[in-house]
Each structure stands twice: as structure tokens, then as C-alpha cells.
């Protein structure tokens, strides 16, 4: 039987970049580690801005319950992204797309059920665009640092489909942030919620996909440069 030996250039590269590493924690443990972030995003926006004025008028299952459900959904999506980034644990693209659709459906259900229980139309319908924009900004202020943390956690592994993985954690972070924001924003008019809150979630999803793709491209370019540099050094 012939023995396969490691090519010299590969062995040289490995030898030059060889230090012990600590294995990543399992995706489940890393998802659990996201719970403090979810709690921060849950209580952060209403504590930082203020609690919604009509919070007492909402039944607990609509205010706290729906927010908790949305936050859990966001956590699960981020967990899926973390799992997706580990080689050998990758789910089929169709499943990720289904999970993304489920996340959007969750947001729609939460928003519509709140609007149904306590309809709060805009006092000044002409100001809907300005108010929606304010909510986008308020949500992004909390979402961007969380997006950066998720991107870092995923970038430490190796996502096979970076755009889908990024979209999953982007949507996850968007949902977690919205769970807190809906405890601050007292407007439940669907037009406002879908344009403002939904807009921020959409920005998070697209942003996540873009960030993950760019990070993986940069990582790959570095790997290529490393491999191609071997040809210069080898005789």
C-alpha cells in the first residue's frame, strides 16, 4: 500500500502556523451564551428610551408573552446560524429558507395580534414616515452592536453559505431587538410597524448577509494569498 505524505508546502505552512487551539463550544452552548444579549435587547430599548405609555392596557400575554416569543425566535435563528457555521453540521438551504420565513411570519403574527388587541392608530397620519424612520434608527442603535457580536461568533467558524447564515443571524438579531422595541413604541398601526420595525429587521437581515459574505470573502482571499505565496518561496 502506498503511503500518502503531506506535500512539503502544506507541511511548511502548517508548521509555521502551528499552535494549540481550544475547540469552539458546541452551537447549543454558544446559543445559550447569547441569552444575556437577548435579555439586554429585551430590556435595553424600553429602559434606555421609556416604557410604552399603554403597556398597562395590553394583556400580559400580548406585551410580555409576545415579546418573549419574538425574542426566543430570534435566539433560535441566531443559534441556527451558529450551527450552520460549523462544518459537518450544515443544514440544507431549503431548511434555512424555511427558518427565515418562519421568523418573518413570527414578526407578522406578533405585530398583527398586538394591533388587533389594542389598535393604536397614528395621531397624525402625515407623520408616519418620520415616526417609522425614528423607529428604524432606534432599533438599529441596539441591533448594530449585536449584529457585530453575532458576525464575530459566526466568523470564528466556517459557514458554508455565508449569505444565508448571515441572513439568519441578521434576522435573529432583528427579532430580538424588536422584542424590546415593541415594549417602548406605543404605535401598533400595521403601516408603522411594518415600515419602521419591519424595515429595521429587513436592514438587519440584508446587512447580516452582506457582512457574512464579505468576511468570508476576505478570509478566503487571505487563504488564497497564503497558498499562492508558497509558489514564490518554493524552488
Amino acid at each position, binding site marked *: 500500500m502506498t503511503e500518502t505524505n503531506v506535500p512539503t508546502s*502544506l507541511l511548511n505552512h502548517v508548521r509555521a502556523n502551528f499552535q494549540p487551539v481550544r475547540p469552539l463550544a458546541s452551537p447549543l452552548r454558544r446559543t445559550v451564551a447569547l441569552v444575556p444579549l437577548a435579555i439586554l435587547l429585551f430590556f435595553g430599548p424600553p429602559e434606555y428610551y421609556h416604557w410604552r405609555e399603554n403597556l398597562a392596557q395590553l394583556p400580559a400575554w400580548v406585551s410580555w408573552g409576545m415579546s418573549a416569543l419574538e425574542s426566543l425566535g430570534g435566539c433560535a435563528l441566531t443559534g441556527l446560524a451558529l450551527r450552520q457555521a460549523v*462544518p459537518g453540521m*450544515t443544514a440544507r438551504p431549503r431548511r434555512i429558507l424555511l427558518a427565515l420565513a418562519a421568523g418573518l411570519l413570527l414578526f407578522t403574527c406578533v405585530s398583527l395580534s398586538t394591533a388587533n388587541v389594542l389598535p393604536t392608530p397614528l395621531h397624525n397620519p402625515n407623520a408616519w414616515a418620520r415616526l417609522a424612520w425614528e423607529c428604524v434608527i432606534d432599533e438599529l442603535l441596539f441591533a448594530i452592536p449585536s449584529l457585530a457580536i453575532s458576525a464575530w461568533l459566526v466568523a470564528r467558524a466556517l459557514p*458554508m453559505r455565508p449569505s444565508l447564515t448571515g441572513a439568519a443571524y441578521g434576522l435573529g438579531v432583528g427579532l430580538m431587538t424588536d422584542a424590546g422595541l415593541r415594549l417602548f413604541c406605543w404605535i401598533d398601526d400595521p403601516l408603522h410597524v411594518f415600515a419602521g420595525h419591519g424595515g429595521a429587521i429587513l436592514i438587519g437581515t440584508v446587512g447580516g448577509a452582506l457582512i457574512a459574505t464579505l468576511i468570508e470573502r476576505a478570509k478566503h482571499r487571505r487563504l*488564497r494569498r497564503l497558498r499562492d505565496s508558497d*509558489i514564490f518561496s518554493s524552488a
Partner: protein
Amino acid sequence: MTEHQSAQILDQLMREYQSGSLAAFEALYRALAPRVDGFIRARVRDDARASDLLQETFLELHRSRRTYLPGHSVIGWTFGIAQNVLLRHRREARRRDEHEVSADLSELEEQFTPRTADFEWQPLQDALDRLSPDSRTTWWMRNIEGLSFEAIAVRLGIAAAAVRLRCSRATRALRAALEKGSDHD
């Protein structure tokens, strides 16, 4: 040896590799490279490209060694990485094809407005000088003299697959050097 025992040995090797054993890496390479090679060759016909991808898979494996979760399947993890590398390769090939179509169009344009005199040869010359002599000769024969891989193989006394590999690597290295040069400008 049963499959379970073999999986346990690979898991043990992987743990040793993660804790800094070069010998464990070499043993893993010997155990995994033939399987990964078969996996890649079943999907990529070009020999040179397949060898490149095998090396890239192991480079990626080395870089991502922390993502292996002890106790899980080493084979599944390695094939996950190989699949990732293949997928990237396909995406790149698709992008390159699109790029080459536009390059062909620009060649047509050049036929009508010759600009050879404006071409700066110096960066290409510098990049060529940085190649190893073997790679430079092979690249030159293929791209400037226009010889076939087989003809070059006969001239140099090496296998045609090795010529393809050298040419593909040299082209990539040149491209990287030229892109790096233009970034500095």
C-alpha cells in the same frame, strides 16, 4: 478495525492535533487525504484543479481546526470543509466565466484600437521574476510560446498533470502579485 474504532482513532488524533501535535496532523492527512481526494475528483475533472482543491481543503482544515467539536465525526467535519471549498471554487469559476466573457469583448475592442504600446510590462516582468524558475519556464512556454501541456511535459520531462498544476498556480500567483501591485498604486 471496525468503523466505530476507526472513528474513535480519528477523534483522538483530532484532539491531539488541536492540542498542538504535528505528528497527529500528518497521521490525519494520511488517513483523510485519499478519501477527500476521491470526494473532490468525483466532482472536479481537471487533475490540476483537484490537486489544488485538495491542498486548499487541508489549508482550510488547518485554519478551522478549532471548529471541530471533540466527540463528533471527523469524517463528516472534513467533508463539510471539502464541500465548502468546492462550493467556493464553483462560485469563483462562475464569476471568472462572467469576467472572461467581458475580457473577450475587450479583446475585440482592442483589435480596433490597438493599445499594446500603452501596456506596462514592468509589473508583469517583476511578478515573473518572483516566480520560481520552474514555474516561470512552464508559464512562459504555455502562455507566451503557446505550447500544449503535453508538449511542455515532454520538453521538461514531467507529467502533463504536473504542467497543468504549475501553470494554474503560476497564473494565480501572477494575478495575485499584479493585483497587489495595482492596490499599492
